[in-house]
Every structure is written in structure tokens, then in C-alpha cells.
């Protein structure tokens, strides 16, 4: 059963991590790659750079709150920003299916251009490939990005020591992206006003770094959702984390759809959310700074670091019970039981 690519290999959870470790890390082997962080932090001729890549394959291409083009810019900008880099340059690689509408392509490109402008990055190099009808699903976009590490973010990028008692902050509600995209698909017949949270977070993050707040770690949530992200953090930083489920912001309609389909919002995809670890004493100033930005209005503390030597993520439920929160194992499938 292991020999074929399955949807779970791309869903940001455990299967994907195994594939990445067993195949990519093993053969490519570079230490920056193996860190598995959002961007590689590099030296180029004495200069410090962040470099990252992502491909975008979302279906449908247009969804409430965004489209694949906006996503492609935000995803890469965010991966640079959470590493403390100032995003500067993006590449854009298009794979187009024969028969795809050029008018739709233009809409997507305009959306990319707008988002790039808003976030202050330039798309400086590109590529276009066309595949025959049926050989791709309309259009895929790859963006890669380069940023530089400013002086004041230097120590952040080197990872401050995370301590017991440090708190975890998130800048808003979970799962809006996943549900907005799902409800737009014909095969999931929900109608809602839920919009994708898709957004470039670099200005929000920049406002923290500029104030020289003691940010200890940041990661943007994407495919695997909060639970997978926290597990990645716990493992990479060798810490135990405990979150309080009642404090995790989830929209009522998102929660409802999740209960209907048997999904867990903690594992739903997001595209404009970042988890930030700060010391407890800095938390209120961080939240205040975040709340000053539209993208951080609902920022809140969701949990804390409970051990400096661990790798577990624990969730405390509404009634005080506790459970181990693991990585997502495969693509979440709608179910009846």
C-alpha cells in the first residue's frame, strides 16, 4: 500500500512528513532543507538570504476571499516573513492546461500583481509551460521567493531560546480557508459566507519585528492546520506545548460544517494565520501590536510552552479533559461516522 502516491502524501500531515524525510531529505541532504523550516536561511557571498518555494494546486481556482493567484503570492511571502526576512522578489512558474481560458488566466495574474504590490514584493522572473488537455487541472502556479534578513531580525532568525511558560499566540480564526474552498466545490454542497483568510502577513509580522518585541518563533499555518503546525514546532524546538481548546478561535459556521463532515478544525488549512511564541511578559504588547493591524484583530493567546525538553502537544478540552494532539495522518475525508 506504500508504493503509490496517495492524497495524504500532500496533505501536510504525517504521510507527507514521511515522504519528505525518506525521499527528499535523504537524497538532497542539505542542512537547511532538513531543518524543514518555512524558508531556507542562506549565505550568498557573505550576504544573508531567505529562500522558499511553494506550488499551488487549489481547486476551485476562485473561491470566496481569494484565488490561486493571491494564494500563490501570500503563501511564499508568508514563508519568508515568518523567518524574519523582508520578502523582496518572487518568481512565478505557470503550468497551464490546454483549453484553459486566457481571460481567467489574466484575472489570476492581475490578482497576483495586486497582492504583490500590496505586500511590497516584485515578481521578477517567470516561466510558462502548457500541457495537453487532461494532463493538468486547469492551472498550477509555483512561486519561489527571496528575502533579506534585516539587522533587527537577525537574532530572531537565529532562534531565541524558547522557555517554559512562553505563550503561543494566533492572529485569528482557524479553518476559514479550507471551508471557503470546500464550500465552493460542487461536490461539497454547502453555502456559506465564510471567506478564505488568505493574506500576506509580512507587514503584520514586520510591525512586531520593528518594535523589537521578543518574538521567539513564528510559523504560518497552511495545509496541515494548527495541530500539524504545533507538532512541527514541538518536534523541531524540542518543547512540550499545551493549548486550551476553548481559547482557539473558530467561526461558528466553520465549526458546524466540521461537525457535519467529521472534520476537526485543528487540522483545517489556513492561509493567513501565524503562530507566534513569545515570553509571557511580552504577550500583551505583542497582542496589542497585532490587534492594531486588520489581519490581527482577533489575536489571542491559545496556549503555552509546558516543557523545554519534550515534543508533545496537549489539548485541554472545554471541560478540562486533556488529550494528545497528533499530526494529521492523511487528507481529511467527509464521513458519516
Amino acid at each position: 500500500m506504500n508504493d503509490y502516491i496517495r492524497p495524504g502524501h500532500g496533505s501536510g500531515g504525517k504521510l507527507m512528513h514521511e515522504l519528505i524525510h525518506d525521499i527528499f531529505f535523504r537524497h538532497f541532504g542539505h542542512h537547511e532543507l532538513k531543518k524543514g523550516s518555512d524558508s531556507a536561511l542562506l549565505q550568498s557571498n557573505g550576504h544573508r538570504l531567505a529562500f522558499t518555494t511553494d506550488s499551488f494546486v487549489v481547486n476551485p481556482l476562485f473561491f470566496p476571499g481569494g484565488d490561486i493567484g493571491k494564494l500563490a503570492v501570500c503563501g511564499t511571502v508568508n514563508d519568508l516573513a515568518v523567518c524574519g526576512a523582508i520578502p523582496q522578489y518572487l518568481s512565478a512558474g505557470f503550468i497551464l492546461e490546454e483549453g484553459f481560458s486566457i481571460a481567467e488566466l489574466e484575472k489570476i495574474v492581475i490578482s497576483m500583481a495586486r497582492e504583490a504590490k500590496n505586500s511590497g514584493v516584485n515578481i521578477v522572473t517567470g516561466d510558462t509551460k502548457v500541457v495537453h488537455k487532461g494532463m493538468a487541472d486547469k492551472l498550477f502556479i509555483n512561486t519561489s521567493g527571496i528575502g533579506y534578513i534585516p539587522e533587527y531580525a537577525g537574532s530572531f532568525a537565529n532562534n531565541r531560546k524558547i522557555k517554559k511558560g512562553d505563550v503561543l499566540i494566533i492572529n485569528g480564526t482557524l479553518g476559514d480557508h479550507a471551508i471557503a474552498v470546500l464550500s465552493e466545490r460542487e461536490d461539497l454542497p454547502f453555502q456559506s459566507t465564510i471567506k478564505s483568510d488568505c493574506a500576506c502577513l509580512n507587514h503584520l509580522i514586520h510591525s512586531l519585528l520593528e518594535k523589537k518585541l521578543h518574538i521567539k518563533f513564528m510559523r504560518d499555518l497552511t495545509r496541515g492546520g494548527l495541530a500539524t503546525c504545533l507538532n512541527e514546532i514541538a518536534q523541531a524546538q524540542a518543547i512540550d506545548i499545551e493549548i486550551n481548546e476553548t481559547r482557539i478561535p473558530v467561526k461558528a459556521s466553520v465549526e458546524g460544517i466540521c461537525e457535519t463532515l467529521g472534520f476537526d478544525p485543528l487540522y483545517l488549512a489556513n492561509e493567513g494565520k501565524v503562530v507566534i511564541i513569545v515570553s509571557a511578559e511580552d504577550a500583551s504588547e505583542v497582542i496589542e501590536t497585532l490587534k492594531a493591524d486588520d489581519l490581527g484583530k482577533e489575536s489571542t493567546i491559545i496556549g503555552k510552552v509546558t516543557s523545554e525538553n519534550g515534543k508533545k502537544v496537549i489539548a485541554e478540552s472545554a471541560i478540562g479533559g486533556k488529550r494528545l494532539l497528533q499530526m494529521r495522518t492523511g487528507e481529511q475525508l467527509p464521513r458519516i461516522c
Partner: protein
Amino acid sequence: MKYVHEYRNKELSQKLINKIHHSAKGKYTFMEVCGGHTMAIQKFGIPSLLPPKIKLLSGPGCPVCVTEKSYIDTAIAYARLSNTIIATFGDLMRIPGSTSSLELEKARGSDVTIVLSALEALKIAQNKPDKKIIFLAIGFETTAPGSAVAVVQASKARVKNFFILSAHKLMPPAMKAIVDEGVKIDGYICPGHVSTITGSAIYDDIARKYSLPCVISGFEPLDLLQTILALVHQVNEKHSTVEIQYARAVQPNGNPKAKAIMKQIFCETDSEWRGMGNIPKSKLVLSEKYQQYDAEKMIPVDVEPTISDKGCICGEILKGLKTPLDCKLFGSGCTPENPEGACMVSGEGACQAYYRYQSQTEIT
């Protein structure tokens, strides 16, 4: 009132927990037969809040876990036919058959599509008259009425390319079989959503003949805690009656309309249960009159011989004789990514529930 968060109240649950701690005198073993209960119990961390003398066992309440392997093998055989679309709830996608799974067959090119309802499968059939649509009808009494509606609608609209492959199972025969097998329990947390259809009378036999307390429970923490408290009380007072904790959804008589349509479309038959062997009158199949919608009757197919699981103790777990931690494969040879047995596949299978929501005691 939206009937969800009100039942997740921390203060009220603390009151119930205190009461349970206070009332629990001896040792108690209760079985939740519904996978939804298993999930909720783990998700809300209920074991970490109960006194250690109360033990909760997971029963055969995940329709996916109890589905016989030969059923999956049959579905896979159908998936491999050309011009055929398998419509299934997501639950079945990753269940290992003897040598493959529906997910893998889809990856290999079969047309397998996930639906949220039996009516969606029927709609596909109406939109693609050139194809044969086989709906994998799984689930207990809760789900079977929906399949029945789809068959009635297909019949009304004279749809000729819609078929069901039924694995609809009945709950009471399995609950009896568990006790007959000698599993030692002190009461049943009875399945709330099954009971919305069936009503409470189906458990009368169990309470009376087997002298087991039965409480029909809802799925929120307050529901479950209240149910556990009621069971403790019954045991303490040596009662064994059927109580309805989930009164907001369960009528003593259930849902007569749903029961009627089930009766119209289906008849009972003996059936294999994964890990539990044959249980008499425990499965619903289409009655004579609706044969033309029965995939097995209408579409001949060669099914590969079933290969039995190696090392999987799913069956004993379903019977409540063992817990997932007793399985040598648990967590190493068998994980949600690469499940060996069915209990690891479903989100509410006992093994996956354990794997995902491991209780605090096991964590620290």
C-alpha cells in the same frame, strides 16, 4: 439554544464529575458501543476526569470497523469494472481489503467518488445514464433509512443504473453477542443516534434478560457524564433498566416514518462482523421486491479470495475483551497512515481514537 455548546459547560460538567467521584464505590466497566461516543470521550479527555475505578470500553460501534473484509474486497472488485462508479462515504476509502483499498484503486484509475448522502449517489446515476453507480450502503439503523429513501426515489424515477451494495448492520444483535461472548461489563452507554430511529425498546431485552443497565446517551460531555452517573447509580442500586439521557432527540418509539421505510425496503439476514464472526439477523439487505437495485444480484463480479488479518486483534477490541494497547501492532505496524486493521482506519475506530486522543494518563 443551539443544543451543542450548552452541553460543553465546564462548571456543570465539574458538578457531574464530582458527583461521579462521590457515587463511584466499587469497580465499574461500561461499554460505549457507538464510535461517536468513543470519539467524544477521547476528544474531551473524559477518561482523565473520571475516577480510575470507572473503565470505559469501546464496543463495535463503528460501522466501518465491523464491516467484513469480503465486503471491501467486493467493493474493490466492482471498482475495477469499467463503466462503473463507486459512490461511497469517505469512511470506507482507506479500509484495507485483502490486497488493496478503495483509495488505492482510485489512485490506480478506478472511478471512486465520495458522497455525503445516498441521494447524491442517486443524482450521479441520473446524470450519467451510461455508467453503473454502485452506492456502498454502510451504517447502522441511523443511516439505513437514507439508503431506503434513495431506493424508493430510484424506483419512482425509474432509474436503472443505480445499485446499492449493502452492509447496513443492526446494533442490538451485536450488543447481545458481546455479552454472549462473555465480555464482562456492568452497563451499556447506548448509541444515541441509532436510538433516534429505533427508539428505546430495542434495548429492553438486554436490560431484562442480561440484567445490564442501559442508558441512551447524547454526544456532548454533559450527556456522557450524566449517562455515566446514571449507570453508576443503576449499578449501585442493582437496577437494570433502559434510561434515555438523550431525551431531546430520542423518543421511546423512535422515528416511526424511518422505521416504516426501512421495513419496506430491507429485510434482515445473518451476517459476518469483522472480528466477531457470524451474528444472526444482524444485517439489512434489499428485500425481494427491490432486487433490481441490489448490486450483488444484478452485477456479477469476481471477488478475490479474502486474506485474513495477521496479528490484528480488532475483533477482540470490538468485543471489549482487549484494548488497542494490547495489540502488538498498535502504533508501529499499524498507524492511521498505514492501517492494518479496520479499527485504525476510521476516525472513530477504537484504535484510531486511542491513537489520536490518547488519554492524559497515557501521555504523562
